[in-house]
């Protein structure tokens, strides 16, 4: 009995006090680099140690029998190895792709988003670029690929005209994104509240098969879902009055809101002399309405409606005579309604439905006036065409669905179709498209997107097939290599179709190669591209699609938020070599909207003690070509403008006006000066009919100023400002 007890005790003691043994070894990665701080443990126990800076470990353990050793290191796959007495244990660990973010396809695109990992900027960044006037498209001009065009609205991308970049809201095309074009004055974008959009993707080429009808680029905007909380905003400036609110229902299943702006620059143009003499306006009345409604378990219905009115009436010197004035008066009314619905049909199935309706009327008057402002009628060329009244109206409807299926392994299939209908006084047109896109996650560091788009236009009676391919590969250093290829089509504008229906769509091919590296709050992006225009619209010698051209170049982008405390800046540079034969061009030549070198610098610094954010944006563009081109393709004069240099300054002072209020207000006083240095900008030249006179196209005034105060109640802009400025 006693012996057995003793034996038992001994056995237990032996177990507890097993001969201590020293376990040594190392942990390295596949490149034989030591991994410092890796954890080593004996499987199933708390016994272990960590590796030193040379990746070595050594510890004593009181355990007998077979020992299994586990090595773990952040970002690597854990490994188990047996210990054989007296032999060191060498671990080689492999990277664990599951701990890395999947690679994002990004060739040709810049994303401004509050939620996506691939984003270059946030919606707030877009708003706060000095000199953009809250206009998304203007802010985008500081990104590579976009031209600095100061005399017209629109995004001129990589040698493409402004019409070649289209805008999309929640998947569907915005038919008329800008107010009616005014000669020599850039117009506003109708979408006046960037805060309604939490995802903005600017693509300068190679974009997804889900979108079409943009020969050069796309600006894809995604509206916010339900608003987080109720809020209100009011704003006042000498030229502007703003009011808006968002109301979130108690059950948090619905929200609605509106945003209204009335802007009249007439008094301003009297105070600060402009080239043009404004009899009325420019005046704008912009109204946004939005409704969000949760439907069922997963559905979300979004309504975005936008009504805009613009009136402008001005005169300026007539170019063909020294004593006469030319009047230009325009009124523009536009209603845009966008309804979309997103729902989860079943596990891994998503259905997106969207429809949009646009009604647009414009009323343009051209008159020739004498000194007493009476209309002068001269029945000779060129004066005969200077008294005109043009009224136009257009209705546009589009409906679309996209069905997405998410496969295991993160592959995604998206397929859908779209129908567009346009109607005006002269013609109706119907356009059909269907598309499918498959995103393949071939490996954790390799993604491929293949898409195909079919387009058919009833008026043109032409069917087209547009393949698109893009891919992303993550290099071992964490940077990614991207490539994209695609064919893109765009219908001729209706005014040309009036004369000839049998035109095919304009056609371009894009080839893009891109390198992207992002680390520690810095981002570097380099991209080279080649774009080939197979078909472009010609108006001379006959109306045809026989135009052609190409564009090539490279672009650099650098953003740094972390090197200097409280300073956020980005720099972009674009080199562009392009020639095209379009419209009345006699042969392929450089279009007047393309400068070979473009650069921008945007910097913002927040100065906390005075609660003020200072922003500057500086843009440079090398001289652009200009031509005196007759309608018969004859060049009477040509040259290159001087280079463009503009410095814009914005100051935002933030404070609380009524700190005692239950719901504290958040107030911003904004002061802005565009073209601070008053540099004389020349965008091109306007020629008289006989070519004997040429007048530079320049800014309406040397500098433009803005002063306003905006007060938000209940809204959490605070986080936005904080996150962006700190």
């Amino acid at each position, binding site marked *: 009995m006693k012996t057995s007890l003793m034996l038992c005790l001994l056995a237990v003691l032996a177990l507890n006090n097993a001969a201590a043994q020293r376990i040594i070894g190392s942990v390295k990665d596949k490149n034989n680099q030591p991994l*410092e701080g890796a954890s080593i443990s004996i499987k199933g126990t708390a016994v272990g140690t960590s590796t030193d800076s040379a990746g070595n470990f050594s510890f004593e353990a009181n355990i007998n029998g077979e020992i299994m050793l586990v090595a773990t290191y952040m970002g690597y796959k854990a490994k188990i190895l047996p210990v054989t007495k007296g032999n060191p244990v060498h671990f080689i660990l492999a990277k664990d792709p599951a701990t890395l973010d999947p690679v994002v396809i990004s060739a040709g695109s810049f994303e401004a988003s509050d939620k996506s990992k691939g984003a270059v900027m946030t919606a707030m960044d877009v708003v706060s670029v000095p000199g953009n006037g809250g206009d998304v498209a203007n802010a985008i001009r500081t990104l590579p690929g976009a031209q600095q065009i100061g005399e017209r609205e629109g995004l001129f991308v990589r040698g493409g005209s402004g019409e070649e970049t289209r805008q999309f809201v929640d998947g569907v095309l915005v038919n008329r994104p800008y107010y009616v074009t005014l000669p020599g004055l850039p117009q506003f974008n109708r979408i006046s509240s960037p805060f309604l959009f939490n995802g903005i993707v600017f693509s300068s080429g190679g974009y997804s098969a889900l979108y079409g009808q943009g020969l050069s680029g796309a600006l894809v905007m995604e509206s916010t879902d339900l608003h987080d909380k109720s809020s209100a905003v009011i704003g006042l400036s000498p030229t502007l009055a703003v009011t808006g609110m968002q109301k979130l229902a108690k059950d948090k299943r619905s929200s609605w809101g509106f945003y209204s702006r009335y802007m009249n620059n007439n008094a301003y143009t009297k105070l600060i002399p402009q080239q043009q003499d404004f009899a009325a306006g420019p005046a704008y009345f912009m109204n946004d309405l939005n409704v969000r409604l949760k439907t069922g378990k997963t559905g979300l219905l979004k309504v975005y409606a936008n009504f805009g009115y613009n009136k402008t009436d001005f005169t300026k010197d007539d170019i063909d005579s020294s004593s006469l004035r030319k009047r230009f008066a325009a009124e523009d009314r536009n209603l845009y309604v966008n309804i979309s619905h997103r729902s989860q049909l079943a596990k891994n199935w998503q259905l997106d439905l969207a429809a949009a309706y646009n009604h647009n009327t414009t009323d343009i008057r051209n008159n020739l006036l004498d000194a007493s402002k009476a209309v002068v009628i001269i029945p000779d060329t060129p004066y005969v065409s200077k008294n005109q009244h043009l009224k136009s109206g257009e209705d546009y409807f589009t409906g679309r669905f996209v069905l997405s299926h998410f496969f295991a392994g993160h592959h995604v299939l998206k397929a859908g179709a779209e129908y567009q209908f346009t109607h005006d006084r002269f013609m109706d047109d119907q356009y059909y498209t269907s598309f499918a896109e498959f995103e393949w996650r071939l490996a954790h560091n390799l993604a491929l997107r293949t898409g195909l788009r079919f387009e058919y236009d009833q008026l043109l009676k032409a069917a087209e097939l547009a393949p698109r391919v893009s891919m992303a590969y993550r290099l071992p250093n964490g940077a990614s290599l991207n490539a994209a290829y695609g064919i893109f089509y765009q219908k001729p504008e209706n005014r040309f179709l009036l004369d000839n229906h049998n035109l095919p769509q304009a056609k371009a091919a894009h080839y893009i190669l891109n390198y992207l590296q992002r680390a520690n709050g810095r981002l570097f992006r380099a991209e080279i591209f080649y774009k080939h225009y197979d078909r472009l619209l010609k108006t001379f010698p006959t109306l045809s699609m026989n135009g052609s051209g190409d564009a090539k170049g490279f672009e650099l982008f650098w953003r740094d938020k972390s090197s200097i405390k409280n300073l956020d800046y980005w720099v972009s540079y674009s080199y562009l070599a392009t020639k095209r034969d379009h419209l009345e061009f006699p042969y392929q030549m450089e279009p007047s909207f393309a400068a070979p070198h473009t650069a921008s610098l945007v910097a913002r610094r927040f100065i906390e003690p005075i609660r003020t954010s200072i922003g500057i944006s500086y843009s440079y563009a090398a001289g652009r070509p200009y031509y005196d081109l007759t309608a018969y393709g004859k060049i009477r004069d040509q040259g290159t403008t001087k280079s463009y240099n503009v410095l814009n300054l914005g100051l935002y002072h933030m404070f609380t006006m009524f700190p005692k209020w239950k719901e504290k207000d958040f107030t911003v006083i904004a002061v802005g000066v565009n073209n601070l240095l008053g540099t004389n900008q020349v965008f091109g030249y306007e020629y008289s009919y006989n070519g004997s006179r040429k007048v530079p196209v320049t800014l309406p005034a040397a500098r433009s100023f803005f002063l306003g105060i905006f007060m938000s109640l209940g809204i959490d802009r605070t986080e936005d400002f*904080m*996150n962006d400025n700190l």
Partner: protein
Amino acid sequence: MKQMISLIAVFFMLNTVKAQDQQLAAAVTKLNTAASIADFQQLANEFGRMAAAEPTQWLPAYYAAYSNTKLAFLQKDAERAMQFSNLAEEQIKKAEAIVKPGGNQKELAEVYTVYSFMNRSRVEADPMVNGRKYGPTAGAHLSKARQLDPANPRALYLDGLVKFKTPAMWGGDKKKAKELFEQALKQFEVKPASAVAPQWGRADCEKMIQ
């Protein structure tokens, strides 16, 4: 005889538990003076090993989460920092799952303090992307912790730290922060319940008050 054997077994089991406690206590003491990445990495590893070996104990998981949170704050690279935050989240969730059913408010307050701290590390790693996503969660966990145990010095310290770092116009308040630090220091005077009970933060708090 059987009794004897079970007695001995119990004795040795107690012995192992004691050994584990000693290991934990030693690590907790080390944690009070840890400063470098290497220090915290070793401790994160050690707490992690203990947490794996003792899945029913909340303290090892809790400390592992705290150490990994500190590591997240010490990283220069945002993506790497996020990996540490993610690991810390896994661990603090484990601690929460162990403590929550017991209903011990003081322990739960400790857990939520580290939970909040972990989410702060995410905000700090990449404010632009994470600010809106994790900032409010961090705030909610901290106020939960403050509610559960108003005298918890670590929650007081963290509250002060957030108020100190946030600019005044966005709800920051340096004066209030100082008050919180002073309150926290007072509470740090209260001796921890045991050698292994949460006690980190005192040195950091003292630094803030100078």
